[in-house]
């Protein structure tokens, strides 16, 4: 065969030589970053065209001498042009880059094409856009196995596989949010409007984001801007019936073909008092605003970006949730309706939170042809949280009862090298954090002032053993150091720490003692996984991670009273790092049922040693009278397992069913009791009718059903009462039993009225069902909010 070609070539060549002098131009086309050879690339030289074969080779054999523009095109890649002069036979190696939308941006997020053995679920652009008025926590509940821990409706933090707080990292455009993530009533400070894509990585396998993310990682990614001369923008305005509020979002971007781009986003949301089905919820309003500005210059080979994010919010907390002691708590529990009521108002009074969060980020990357890609990111974060409480005098009520300022500086350097059947990602990060707890509050600090220094290094190797089998191995080392300045009550110090930590003592002032604890932690985490892909109908992933997390500052030093829960929280300086072993299995099955069926099953198992858990260890009397449960952070051994199931069935071209369910089991094996605040078993089902031809019309009916959580530890508060003989006795206030299950219906519909103008309308809790949520800290005081109509008008250009 080859011989024939050769003969033909020679023959043709000789024919042409006689007419005009021609040369051969041949070469290969390959992918820039993994060097794989690209098939079906079209090469044009003048009027001549050739296609690459399976080995990425192309050849022209009769190019007349002269100067040409060579164009190489591939469906997945950007066009490549080069001026070539042909005056002899030419050998070329053409390197193509992927489309901008496919490549990683400056953000150090994992490539979407290859999540390896990680369990990743995504909330896409259309889901975000349809639910633009929701906060991050509530939005994430659309993912199976993800739930929220709430304080009312406006404060929601994500729970992944039963874990939350410091165990879930949230990455805002590549920057790990540094805030008071330990607190149950501290919601993540992000504006969902800034992002177009949210990945949730379940489990601890994402070592690159830090060893502390035992539960998982939420990766928020902004829009990847195209490389062309254009202005893009979109404005959405929503009206929200429950709370009589509005939400305005504006996005603008100007891009240039040479890779420069500037963008800015803004949002403003205002809600008044929310309403439960039978009554109004006093002081549950919200006012929040967000701003984002970014400038970037990105080409395939190198780029840099600067981004600034600001979120500001004032959040009201249900007035009735503030109780002084356990007797007040009992009164609230036995009262069928919240005690405090008012006519609808937009006012936000105490108790409330005022939070401000700034992120400034500079990032740059460069690709080296034989060395891979290097990305460096420096970020600065400033978080200011003020919590206003119900206090004795008007003067004091004007002062926040908690005033924390947290400053975080972090530097990340990442290196990624991709080759045909393997890639290796390595990175280091280092950071400095300073927390200042203002004494002007005239209230006890919940957490002390501290400096934290931390650094980490990791490496993850992904290797393709066979076409059906990928293998992955990662390791990470983290170092954490705290320098803390804390006052203790002398009696507490003497009882707990005096014997072992006398080095930390600075001075004693009457019944108080000033200490400067200095604590260091070393953590090693490893991760291994395999992906088996025997056919396009079946994918099996298995992942094992051994993770280690240092205790956070609340777990070490918290010292305060939480009024609304009537509990006292205490940290413990002796805390060690918690280490967990996690096993995750994911089976993704596709089947040709009707128009296509996808099923994903994710069972998991964790065993954690020294799991840091807040458990009640006794009672304490305070000035408020009665006993408060003292929740100490303690280290226990914990066992958790669970199952997430997702199913999607395309019934016809226009009708799709989606269903998901999750169950988690958590047990404190040290005390042999269930873990507190585990997500109740739940199911979500939805049916969507969708017709592109009708201007993108869709109509969705969905149902969320939560069963009652039957596994819970019993930690009740005693109160003192008197019998008819005048004898005192104790009665328990039940703060442990979870509320009953519930089922909610929602509908959502939308259509694009014109090319630029669209409309979305949804009704949440259609039947105005009264219910209480086990994972809402305010469940003792009121029902959840009732029916809500949301109308969103969208204009984009």
């Amino acid at each position, binding site marked *: 065969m080859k011989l024939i070609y050769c003969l033909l070539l020679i023959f043709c060549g000789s024919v042409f030589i006689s007419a005009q002098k021609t040369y051969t131009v041949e070469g290969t086309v390959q992918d820039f970053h993994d060097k794989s050879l690209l098939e079906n690339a079209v090469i044009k030289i003048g009027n001549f065209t050739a296609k690459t074969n399976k080995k990425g080779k192309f050849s022209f054999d009769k190019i007349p001498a002269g100067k040409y523009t060579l164009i190489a095109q591939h469906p997945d890649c950007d066009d490549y042009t080069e001026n070539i002069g042909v005056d002899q036979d030419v050998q070329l190696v053409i390197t193509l880059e992927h489309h901008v939308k496919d490549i990683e941006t400056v953000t150090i997020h994992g490539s979407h094409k290859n999540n390896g053995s990680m369990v990743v679920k995504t909330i896409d652009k259309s889901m975000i856009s349809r639910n633009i008025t929701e906060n991050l926590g509530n939005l994430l509940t659309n993912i199976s196995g993800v739930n929220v821990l709430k304080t009312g409706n406006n404060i929601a933090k994500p729970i992944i596989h039963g874990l939350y707080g410091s165990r879930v990292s949230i990455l805002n455009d590549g920057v790990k949010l540094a805030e008071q993530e330990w607190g149950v009533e501290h919601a993540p400070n992000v504006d969902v409007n800034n992002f177009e894509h949210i990945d949730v990585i379940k489990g601890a396998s994402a070592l690159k984001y830090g060893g502390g993310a035992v539960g998982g990682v939420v990766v928020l990614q902004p829009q990847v801007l195209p490389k062309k001369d254009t202005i893009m923008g979109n404005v959405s305005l929503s009206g929200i019936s429950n709370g009589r509020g509005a939400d305005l979002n504006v996005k603008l971007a100007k891009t240039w073909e040479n890779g420069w781009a500037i963008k800015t986003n803004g949002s403003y949301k205002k809600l008044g008092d929310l309403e439960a089905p039978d009554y109004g919820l006093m002081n549950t309003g919200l006012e929040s605003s967000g701003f984002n500005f970014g400038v970037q210059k990105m080409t395939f080979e190198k780029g*840099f970006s600067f981004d600034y994010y600001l979120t500001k919010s004032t959040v009201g907390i249900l007035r009735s949730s503030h109780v*002084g*002691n356990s007797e007040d708590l009992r009164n609230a529990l036995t009262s069928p309706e919240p005690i405090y009521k008012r006519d609808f108002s937009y006012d936000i009074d105490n108790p409330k939170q005022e939070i401000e969060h700034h992120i400034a980020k500079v990032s740059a990357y460069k690709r080296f042809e034989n060395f891979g890609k290097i990305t460096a990111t420096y970020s600065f974060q400033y978080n200011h949280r003020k919590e206003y409480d119900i206090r004795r005098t008007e003067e004091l009520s004007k002062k926040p009862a908690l005033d924390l300022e947290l400053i975080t500086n972090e530097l990340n350097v990442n290196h990624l090298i991709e080759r045909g059947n393997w890639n290796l990602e390595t990175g280091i990060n280092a950071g400095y954090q300073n927390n*200042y707890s203002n004494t002007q509050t005239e209230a006890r600090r919940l957490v002390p002032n501290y400096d934290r220094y931390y650094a980490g290094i990791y490496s993850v190797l992904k290797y393709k053993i066979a076409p059906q089998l990928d293998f992955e191995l990662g390791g990470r080392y983290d170092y954490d150091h705290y320098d803390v300045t804390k006052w203790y009550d002398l009696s507490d110090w003497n009882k707990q720490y005096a014997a072992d930590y006398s080095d930390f003592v*600075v001075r004693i002032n009457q019944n108080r003692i000033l200490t400067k604890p200095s604590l260091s932690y070393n953590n090693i985490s490893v991760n291994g996984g395999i992906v088996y892909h025997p056919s396009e109908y079946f994918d099996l992933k298995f992942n094992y991670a051994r993770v280690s997390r240092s205790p956070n500052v609340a777990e070490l030093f918290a010292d305060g009273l939480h009024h609304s829960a009537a509990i006292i929280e205490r940290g413990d300086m002796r805390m060690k790092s918690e280490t967990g072993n996690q096993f995750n299995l994911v089976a993704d099955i596709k089947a040709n049922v009707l128009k296509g069926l996808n099923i994903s099953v994710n069972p998991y198992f964790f065993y954690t040693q020294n799991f840091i858990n807040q458990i009640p260890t006794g009672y304490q009397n305070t*000035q*408020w*009278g009665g006993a408060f449960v003292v929740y100490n952070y303690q280290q226990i051994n914990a066992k958790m397992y669970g199952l997430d199931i997702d199913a999607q069935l395309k019934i016809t071209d226009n009708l799709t069913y989606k269903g998901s369910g999750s169950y988690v089991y958590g047990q404190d094996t040290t005390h042999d009791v269930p873990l507190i605040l585990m997500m109740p078993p739940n199911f979500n089902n939805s049916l969507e009718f969708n017709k592109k031809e009708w201007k993108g019309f869709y109509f969705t009916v969905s149902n969320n059903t939560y069963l009652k959580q039957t596994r819970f530890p019993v930690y009740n508060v005693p109160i003192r009462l008197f019998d008819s003989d005048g*004898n005192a006795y104790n009665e328990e206030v039940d703060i442990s039993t979870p509320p009953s299950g519930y089922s909610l219906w929602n509908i959502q519909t939308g259509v694009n009225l014109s090319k630029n103008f669209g409309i979305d309308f949804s009704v949440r809790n259609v039947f105005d069902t009264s219910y209480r949520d086990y994972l809402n800290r305010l469940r003792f005081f009121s029902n959840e909010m009732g029916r809500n109509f949301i109308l969103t008008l969208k204009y984009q250009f």
Partner: protein
Amino acid sequence: MKNIFKNTTLILGLLFLAVSLSLTSCNRSDDEADDLPQEELSDVLLRVTDEATGTAVVYDYQVNSTTNPNVKLVNGHTYNVEVIFKNGDEDATQEIKDAKDEHFLVYNFPNSDITLTRTDDANSTRKDGSRVGLKTKWVVNTAVKNASASSQLVLTLFHEPVTVSEASAVSGNGVIYGTHTGGETDAQANYNIIN
């Protein structure tokens, strides 16, 4: 090349800005001020004056204390009682008078027969007409009703109750003066009552 230089300058500039911002804020960690709370109460004092003799005795309930003071009351006597709140050495009673519309005291005698009337002046009378209860007159009929149970006063200071009333109600084997709805407990003091 020129372009790269420009970018580098920009990045360095921003880095410098950020670092200088964080440096200026660094020195805050040296702040060694204690966080002594201003809002808490350390003592609830009862100044009990026997109308007949005019002698006053002060009983000090110390917050968090495990022992309660013994208030000696003689059956048949009438006492004028004043409540004083303290935060360390500071007198916090004035704070309560200043915010009198937000406060209310409830007296619970679960094993005594004492007739209590509020004698507050305008300084501690709420807008709604109810008296806060910082000053009271106790007519002691039977200080200890059931001798086999301990007799006591549970005095509770409520903050921001929704409604209050000076009305009394049965409490255990005795009577409670003052009712309220809503609000949170600001302080609770316990005293033993003895003959």
